[in-house]
C-alpha cells in the first residue's frame, strides 16, 4: 500500500481554484443556480423571494433536523428515525396539553420525549454497538407505532395560541426560515471551528485511530444522537404549530428527504466528509426544484422522478469528486 504510488510526496499542492471547484458544495450551488434560472424561465412568477420563503417554511422543520443529521452521518453513524421522532414528540406534546397540562410544560414534555428517543438510539447503537442503520429502522417503526397508539386515526388540535409559527415574520422572513438559518450558522461554526467538530470528522474517518489518539468517540456520538433527538422533537412541535393539529403520520417518510438533503450537499454516507453549508444549500435546492416544478405545472409523478434523478446524480458526483481528490 505504501509503495504503490511512489512519488506521492512529490506531487504538487493543488491550486486554490481547484480545491474550491472540487468541493461537493460547489456542485450543489451550481444546481441551485441552474434550478433558479430554469424555474424562472418556466414561470415568471417564480423569482419572487417571498414565494420561495413561503415554500421553504413547508420543509424548514425537516431541514433543521437534516443539519444535525449531517453531523451524525459525518461521525460515521446514521439515524433514520428523526421523522418518526418528530411525529411521536408532537403527538406526546399535543396529547399532554390536550389532557390539561400547561403549554410550556407540555413543550418541555415533548422535548424530553425526543431526548428519550435519542437516548434509546444512542444506547443501542453506541453502548450495545449495534449497527445504527438497523437500530434506527427499528425505532423509526416503533416511534411511528407509538404515535399511532397515542393519536389513533384522529387529529389532535393544538391550542390557538400555539398555532402559526410560519406566520410570524422577522424582517419579512418567516420565523421557521430564520430558525433554520440560525441553526445552520451555529452548527456550521461548531462543526467547522471547534474541537468537537474536528473530532466528529476524525471519528467518522477512522474510529480506531480516534480511539488511539485519545478521542472519546462514544461520548461524542451519544451527544449527537441526543442532540438529534431533542432537535427532532422541537422540529415536530414547530410542524404542529404550522399545521394547527397533530396526526401520527406527520412528515411520514420525511427521513428519506433528510438523508437526501445531506447527500445532495455532499455528505459522504460512510462518514468523515460533508459540511453544514452543503446541507444548507441542498435544503434550498430541493425547495427551488420542487416549487419550480409546481409552478411549471409538472405532474407529481414527474416531480418525484426528478428528485430521484437528482439524488443519483448527487451520489455519483460526490463519489467522483472524492475519488478524484483522493486518487
Amino acid at each position, binding site marked *: 500500500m505504501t509503495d504503490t504510488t511512489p512519488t506521492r510526496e512529490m506531487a504538487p*499542492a*493543488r491550486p486554490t481554484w481547484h480545491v474550491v471547484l472540487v468541493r461537493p458544495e460547489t456542485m450543489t450551488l451550481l444546481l441551485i443556480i441552474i434550478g433558479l434560472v430554469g424555474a424562472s424561465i418556466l414561470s415568471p412568477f417564480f423569482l419572487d423571494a417571498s414565494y420561495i420563503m413561503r415554500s421553504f417554511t413547508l420543509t424548514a422543520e425537516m431541514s433543521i433536523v437534516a443539519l444535525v443529521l449531517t453531523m451524525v452521518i459525518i461521525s460515521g453513524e446514521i439515524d433514520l428515525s428523526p421523522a418518526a421522532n418528530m411525529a411521536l414528540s408532537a403527538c406526546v406534546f399535543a396529547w399532554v396539553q390536550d389532557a390539561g397540562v400547561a403549554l410550556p410544560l407540555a413543550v418541555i414534555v415533548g422535548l424530553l420525549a425526543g431526548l428519550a428517543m435519542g437516548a434509546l438510539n444512542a444506547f443501542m447503537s453506541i453502548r450495545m454497538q449495534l449497527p445504527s442503520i438497523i437500530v434506527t429502522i427499528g425505532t423509526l417503526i416503533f416511534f411511528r407505532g407509538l404515535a399511532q397508539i397515542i393519536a389513533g386515526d384522529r387529529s389532535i388540535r393544538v391550542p390557538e395560541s400555539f398555532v402559526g409559527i410560519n406566520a410570524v415574520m422577522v424582517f419579512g422572513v418567516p420565523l421557521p426560515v430564520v430558525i433554520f438559518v440560525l441553526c445552520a450558522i451555529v452548527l456550521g461554526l461548531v462543526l467547522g471551528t471547534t474541537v468537537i467538530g474536528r473530532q466528529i470528522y476524525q471519528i467518522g474517518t477512522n474510529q480506531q*485511530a480516534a480511539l*488511539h489518539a485519545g478521542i472519546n468517540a462514544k461520548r461524542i456520538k451519544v451527544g449527537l444522537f441526543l442532540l438529534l433527538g431533542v432537535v427532532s422533537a422541537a422540529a415536530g412541535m414547530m410542524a404542529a404549530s404550522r399545521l394547527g393539529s397533530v396526526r401520527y403520520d406527520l412528515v411520514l417518510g420525511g427521513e428519506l428527504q433528510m438523508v437526501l438533503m445531506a447527500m445532495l450537499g455532499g455528505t459522504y454516507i460512510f462518514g*468523515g466528509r460533508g459540511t453544514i453549508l452543503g446541507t444548507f444549500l441542498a435544503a434550498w435546492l430541493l425547495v427551488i426544484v420542487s416549487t419550480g416544478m409546481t409552478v411549471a405545472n409538472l405532474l407529481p409523478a414527474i416531480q418525484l422522478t426528478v428528485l430521484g434523478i437528482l439524488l443519483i446524480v448527487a451520489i455519483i458526483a460526490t463519489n467522483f469528486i472524492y475519488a478524484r481528490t483522493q486518487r
Partner: protein
Amino acid sequence: MVDAPKLIEARGISKQFGGVEVLSDIDLDLHAGEIHALIGENGAGKSTFVKILAGVHTPTRGSIKMNGDAVNVTSPIAAQELGIALIHQEPVSFPDLSVAENIVMGRKGGGLLSRVPWATIIADARRYMDMLGVSIDVTRPMHGLSIANQQMVEIARALASDSRLIIMDEPTAPLTPREVDTLFAIARQLRDEGRTIIFISHRLEEVRMLCDRLTIFRDGSHIATQTVASIPEDEIIRLMIGRELKKYMRKHTASIGETALEVSGLTLPGAFEDISFTLRKGEIMGLGGLVGAGRTDVARALFGIEPAKSGKIKVGGRDAKIQRPPDAIDLGLAFVPEDRAGHGIFGTLPVEHNITAAIPGKIAPSGVISRALERGFSRKSVDDLSIRLASLNQPIVELSGGNQQKAILARWLLTEPEVLILDEPTRGIDIGVKAEFYDMIGDLAEAGRAILLISSELPELLSLCDRILVMAEGRITAEIPRDEANQEKVMQAAVPRSGIAA
C-alpha cells in the same frame, strides 16, 4: 544461469500516475527457474512494477515478452491465464468465505450451474496447507485468522494456481522465523521445478539466503541486476539509496535517570500474564519476541485501549489507573501503534489535522480552534522531523509510509510525553527514513524521555536499546542488558518453550 531460458523479457516499462512518472524505462529479464529479488527503498517502484506484470496496472509504455512471445497483461485474469500469480503485500481475501474457497478462488471449471466439487476443493486446500506446514482447519472462515496465517493462505492460493511466475511482495513481514523457513523451502522447491519467483523484501539477509539474482530499483529506475553472491551488502545499500550511509544505526548515550514507568504483575488473561518491569527516564527499553507473543497487547493495556485485568502501573512514582487512552495521555504516555493505516492515520484528513489530533487543548484553548496556533504547531513538527509533503492541507494518505509515520510520531511529541511507546515504528519504512527514525529515538532518550520500543527486527533492538525484554506466549522470558545482548540470546528467549523442549 546465464544461458538459462528467459521466461519474461520486460522492455522499456514505464508507468505514470496522474502525470507523475513512477517507473521509467525498466528493462528486466527473468530466467526460468530462478528466485529473483527485487529490492529498493519504499517508493522505488517495486510494487508498481510487479503489479504491471500481474495485470493490476497497465504500463504507460513498454512491452512484455513471455517465452519469447509478446503478451498483453491487461487484467489480473489475463495474468492468471498466462500463469502469473501475485502474492499481495497485504493479504487480500474474502473474509466470510472458507480458507479452502479462498485458496481455490479464481479457479476455472464447470459451467455456471454445475455442482461445486467440495470434496476435491477441500482435499486440495488441505494438501497445500500441509505443504506449507500450517495446521488450520481449511473449512473455517478467513476472518479471525492471524495476519501470518492469512499470508500463508495467499501463498497457498498462488501454489494452487500452478503458475510459472510467482511474485511475492514482502511475504515474510508477518511470519515467524519457522514459517519463513518453510516458505523458503517451498520457494526453492518451486524453483527446482523450473518456476520463476520474484521476491520483494526489505530484509537483505533473507535475500541473501534465498535468492539467485537481485535487481535494485531506485526512484522508478532500474539501477542494477547482479547475482546475489557477487555483490556485498554495503554495495547493495549504496545502490538502493544512492549515497553512502555512514551510520546505519547508533547506540545512544543518554544518562539514565529516575523511574518513569513501573509495571508489576500486569495480567490480561489470554493475552499476557504477570508482566513486570521498570522503565527509567532517558532509557530505551526494547520489547522483543515473536509476532503474537503479546507485546502489542501489553502496549495497548498500558495505553488504556484494552486495560489489563490485574496488576499495578506506576507513572512517575505514583499509582496510576489507566482505563481509557485519555487517562494515559494525561499521565504523559504516548503510543505510536503498529497498524499505521488502521490505528494511526485519519487517511482522508489533512496532514495538519492528523498532527494536532492529540493536543486539542493546545490548538483550541477556548474550544474554538485557533488556525494560527494549529499552523504553528504543525509547521514546527514538519520542520523538526523533516516530514516531506506538498502542503499541510494534503490528505495524509498521499504521503509515503515513512512520512505518515513521522506525522504520527509528531502528533505524540506535541503532547510532550514522559513515556513513549513505539510499536514496530519502522515497519514498512525504507532504509533512509529508518535511519532518521533511529536518530530521532536516540535524541528523544537524550532529552530524558523513557522509551519502550517494540520491534521484531533484532538489529534494531540490539543497537538501539539499553535493555531488552523478551516475551514469549504472553510472559517475559528474559531481560538482557545491552552489553550481553546478541541475536542468539534474544531468539532463544523468544521461541516458545514447547518449541525448544529438548
